[in-house]
């Protein structure tokens, strides 16, 4: 796979606090990479360094396997913390500045504003926007040059539930189009829903790195219950997709083979005259994993 970004022993301290401590990271094309960590774990500082607005103390990073960072940044759409625009300019006028810097055509402005749901407000000044609209405008700015790489830093910070849903949908749509995305977040749920890969940072150190699906997909258990418990036990015993079954009060916890799903089990039972009254797939949530990772490293 092609390397998008290689970070090598990157470090930064503020006074006596080590914000980022010898961080190594590789990101390849097509990944949606979540940088997960509690507040103050060095996520934004890391993004600031790879975007050249925070000076690194030591270590290095390379974009696209080449050395010209200014040129590389033109191929990256990035938002760091708060949306930053001229309050006295309209959305269109602000995006013209972005297009000018990125050396891209202004023809896309209408398209990205529609994508962000701001087209009707395009001629209103930035200062009249709500926080959600500001956040969406910065996503529009990041998308403007149709860059292969996008960086989002806490993209749903400060938004109401509706705004969060909108922004996540926007990011998912973008991720679906095959772009590489680097996203920092302290919201586990967000990383779980959007990312393919993730790493966990704490106090500037990388504690864990891996695929979201591997970390979550280790256990695949289905909890089932029916009125006729004995018959259910027998049917489960003959279900080819199961590895083990364990009675747990009035329910059975069935450990499944990797290729079989709860739907298969439901079909199987129904065909044998059992109507399930409970069918629940248990997966590990990233939250449990995250807490486990933090605990292991204490």
């Amino acid at each position: 796979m092609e390397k998008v970004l290689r970070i090598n022993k990157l470090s930064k301290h503020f006074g006596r606090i080590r914000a980022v401590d010898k961080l190594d990271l590789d990101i390849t094309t097509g990944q949606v990479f979540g940088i997960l960590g509690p507040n103050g774990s060095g996520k934004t500082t890391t993004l600031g360094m790879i975007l050249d607005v925070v000076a690194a103390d030591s270590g290095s990073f390379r974009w696209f396997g080449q050395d010209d960072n200014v040129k590389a940044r033109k191929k990256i759409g990035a938002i760091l913390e708060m949306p930053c625009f001229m309050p006295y300019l309209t959305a269109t006028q602000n995006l013209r500045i972005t297009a000018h810097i990125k050396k891209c055509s202004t023809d896309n402005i209408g398209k990205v504003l529609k994508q962000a749901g701001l087209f009707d407000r395009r001629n209103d000044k930035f200062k009249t926007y709500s926080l959600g609209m500001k956040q969406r405008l910065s996503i529009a700015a990041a998308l403007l040059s149709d860059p292969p790489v996008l960086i989002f830093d806490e993209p749903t910070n400060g938004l109401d539930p509706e705004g969060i849903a909108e922004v996540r949908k926007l990011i998912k749509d973008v991720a679906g189009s095959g772009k590489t995305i680097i996203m920092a977040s302290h919201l586990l749920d967000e990383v779980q829903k959007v990312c393919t890969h993730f790493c966990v940072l704490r106090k500037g150190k990388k504690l864990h790195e891996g695929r979201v699906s591997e970390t979550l997909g280790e256990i695949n258990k289905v909890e089932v219950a029916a009125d006729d418990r004995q018959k259910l036990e027998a049917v489960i015993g003959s279900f080819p997709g199961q590895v083990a079954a364990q009675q747990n009060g009035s329910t059975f916890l069935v450990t499944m083979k990797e290729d079989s799903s709860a739907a298969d089990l439901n079909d199987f039972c129904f065909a044998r005259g059992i109507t399930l009254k409970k069918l629940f797939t248990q997966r590990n949530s990233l939250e449990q994993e995250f807490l486990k990772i933090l605990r292991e490293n204490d």
Partner: protein
Amino acid sequence: MIRALKLEWLKIRNYRLFWILIGMYLLALLLIASGGMLFLEWLKSEGADFRGINPTIIPIYDFPDIWQNTTYLATYVKVLLAFIVIISVNNDVTYNTLRQNIIDGISKKEYILSKLLFIVAMAALSTLLLFGLGFVNGSIYSHVWGAEYIFDEMEFLAVYFYEVVIYCTLAFLLSLLIKKAGFIIMALFLYTLMFEPIVDAILINAPIFRDGIAPEIVNFFPIKALNNLISVPYGRYIFMEIEDDVAIKALAIATGWFVFYLGSISYLLNKRDLN
């Protein structure tokens, strides 16, 4: 070059305060360059006389003296151009658009270039306007005429341009050092027109200082260094010896400050984290 200048233009062209300040500046320039005769008429109506001479015949608009006379006065309103620079840089700092511009893909050098070209463009515009106004007023009032007079001492226009550029670069540096635009504007205004001139006057004239090294040191102060570029020209009308050349020493000191300002801007932007 054009690209860097266009970046600044995109930011500033829809900014109302910019146009208000530019308007005020142009008005001030117009008054300064063309109001001299009105002032002399007023003196006359008040009954002032200069050793029996009618004030309106004082040749302030004669070529080539007109260049030193108008550029000297015009340097007093350069603070208005500095205010525009302060507001422009301060906007980028407080709204974080400086950081966003860097993230979007310009180098810090390009950012500095965009502001410097903006300063140069304003200074050039101002110099051109002074030339135009000087030419028109000279055509009306000058007692002498001819290319050898009109185009003599044009170096004052060049030096005026240089002085405005250096002063605005100082404003650029201050805007990176201090976040509060209102404070910088007040501080720069008071320092330029009051604090330093008062200190200069004390060091040059006070009996305990004037015989020592102090009057020489004053020439190295940042504002005095600029003021020395174009000397007060009006002494010639009361038959005093005046400096009517651009002093090389003053030029060297001013250039020293210019290099210092540019170096500091570059150092600040490259060393500091943009948060």
